[in-house]
């Protein structure tokens, strides 16, 4: 049998994504974003996002089909993010996917957004090693997952107990007067700064914390520490060394993430680490993970930045894997689940 041709739809937040893949081959990754409509509100407005998804849906599907050079009727299956995400936003994508399924008489797969962030790497580096340790880091998530078979479930080893890593980047960027989103700007500012200028705290790394939270993260204390340090500097009338603070903060985040990811891989006897989510684009995170992983004989896989942020291709990639492995499609009354747990990869 030929590799399955799958169209995937992603609408969990402010991006309308439609991707088309054939097996592990990316054919199209069309995206429409409403991020600019939200900018003046300082965050994503769910109703604005939902309205934008409705308007962008059919044009984005059309664009994906054109780019891939396929007709909708050619696809073997439809996949869609059923959760987690913003409830009203998810619902638009799920309804569109069902309309495609009914209108084309094709199976539909309602899949997990986070598992899709892992599956997307197959478009870049081929089949995922099994097992594989996935480190998902973004504005909404920081978790370590043990992935045995991405189509049947993932095993959460640890997650943030407060802020997500990407959230910490955004908040610290604001403290330093850097634009939103903070990740890329901190990364750039840090290039010319000193990583050891300030010794910021590493959350949940004390011996006592390790007992209970060995693979969990906490970035809220770090964010507060940076704020206090910057305030103290400003009070004393001295200029804030933005590059040094950015580099020191980034080092604190990456140190904890990589230390725990490598520890988790070693502990579980896993020899591959996959990094996904928007923060995977951070240059220091990649370098430090590779350095520390290599020391333990562990290989690291990171998709290119465009595939790390939210997109439809990742949903199509997971859908294609579901088809390839003969998983049972979702029922036509599948719900959107805004708090779908990471352990539920297919509904």
């Amino acid at each position, binding site marked *: 049998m030929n590799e399955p041709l799958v169209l995937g739809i992603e609408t969990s937040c402010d991006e309308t994504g439609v991707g088309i893949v054939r097996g592990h081959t990316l054919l199209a990754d069309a995206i429409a974003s409403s991020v600019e409509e939200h900018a003046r509100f300082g965050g994503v407005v769910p109703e604005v996002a939902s309205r934008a998804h409705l308007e962008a849906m059919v044009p984005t599907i059309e664009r994906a089909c054109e780019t891939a050079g396929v007709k909708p009727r050619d696809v073997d299956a439809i996949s869609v993010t059923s959760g987690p*995400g913003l409830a009203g936003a998810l619902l638009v994508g799920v309804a569109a996917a069902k309309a495609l399924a*009914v209108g084309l008489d094709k199976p539909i797969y309602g899949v997990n957004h986070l598992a899709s962030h892992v599956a997307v790497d197959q478009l870049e580096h081929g089949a995922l090693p099994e097992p594989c340790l996935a480190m998902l880091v973004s504005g909404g998530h920081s978790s370590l997952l043990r992935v045995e078979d991405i189509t049947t479930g993932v095993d959460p080893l640890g997650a943030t107990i407060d802020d997500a890593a990407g*959230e910490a980047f955004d908040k610290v960027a604001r403290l330093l007067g850097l634009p939103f989103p903070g990740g890329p700007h901190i990364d750039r500012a840090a290039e010319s700064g000193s990583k050891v200028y300030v010794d910021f705290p590493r959350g949940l790394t004390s011996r006592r914390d390790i007992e209970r939270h060995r693979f969990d993260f906490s970035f809220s204390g770090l964010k507060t520490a940076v704020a206090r340090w910057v305030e103290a500097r400003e009070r004393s009338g001295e200029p804030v060394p933005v590059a040094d603070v950015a580099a020191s903060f980034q080092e604190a985040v990456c140190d904890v993430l990589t230390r725990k990811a490598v520890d988790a891989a070693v502990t579980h006897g896993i020899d591959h680490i996959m990094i996904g989510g928007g923060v995977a684009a951070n240059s220091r995170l990649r370098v430090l993970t590779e350095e520390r992983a290599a020391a333990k004989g562990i290989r690291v896989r990171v998709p290119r930045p465009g595939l790390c942020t939210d997109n439809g291709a990742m949903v199509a990639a997971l859908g294609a894997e579901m088809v390839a492995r003969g998983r049972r499609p979702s029922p036509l009354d599948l719900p959107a689940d805004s708090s779908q747990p990471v352990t539920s990869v297919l509904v």
Partner: protein
Amino acid sequence: MLLSFDTASPLVTVALAEGTEVLAERVTEMAMKHGEQLAPLIAGVLEDAGAVRQDVSAIAVGVGPGPFTGLRVGLVTARTLGFVLDVPVYGVCSLDILAVQALDVGAVDGPFMVATDARRKEVYWATYDEFALRIDEPAVNRPVDVASDLPVVGEGARLYPDSFPHAVGPVRPSAGWLARVVAEERAELLDPEPLYLRRPDAVASPPKAVS
């Protein structure tokens, strides 16, 4: 065949019609589950009528006003189906569906009003002439501000009897009547654009819930 559906009320209603003859109609009583129910109901009416998706030659959808979440489910479904089946999609103001039904079943015989539940203690409403033609643009108001002695069709009249003492006719729109409205062109056929009538609440969620 015309596939019609309306999701502008708490219910989902779906019909398949040939001209003015409704071949199959399904409705569900599970309120506010549009996203789950619409697609299975569409598959269901096709099956009931012994039809296949290729028999659908046009789609009609209620464009509201109504609760936004359900409304979008109906509209994105209509647009996407229209795209993949390559058939035209007609929008009809959901209040107009109730108006035509009310006149045809004899619930009204002169000027009247249609008012539906807009939640937040408001109603979506419009007024109609004796032929069930809409006189003004639909609007959203507090019942007390648009109180009327006219006969009032729709759920709004049942919810606010102090403002609308003369409740008559159907309570919620049905897809079968939507099909008749389109077949006979009894109301203005619109683009499948949602009639929100309200601006979005500008409350940002905490930073990306998920990313």
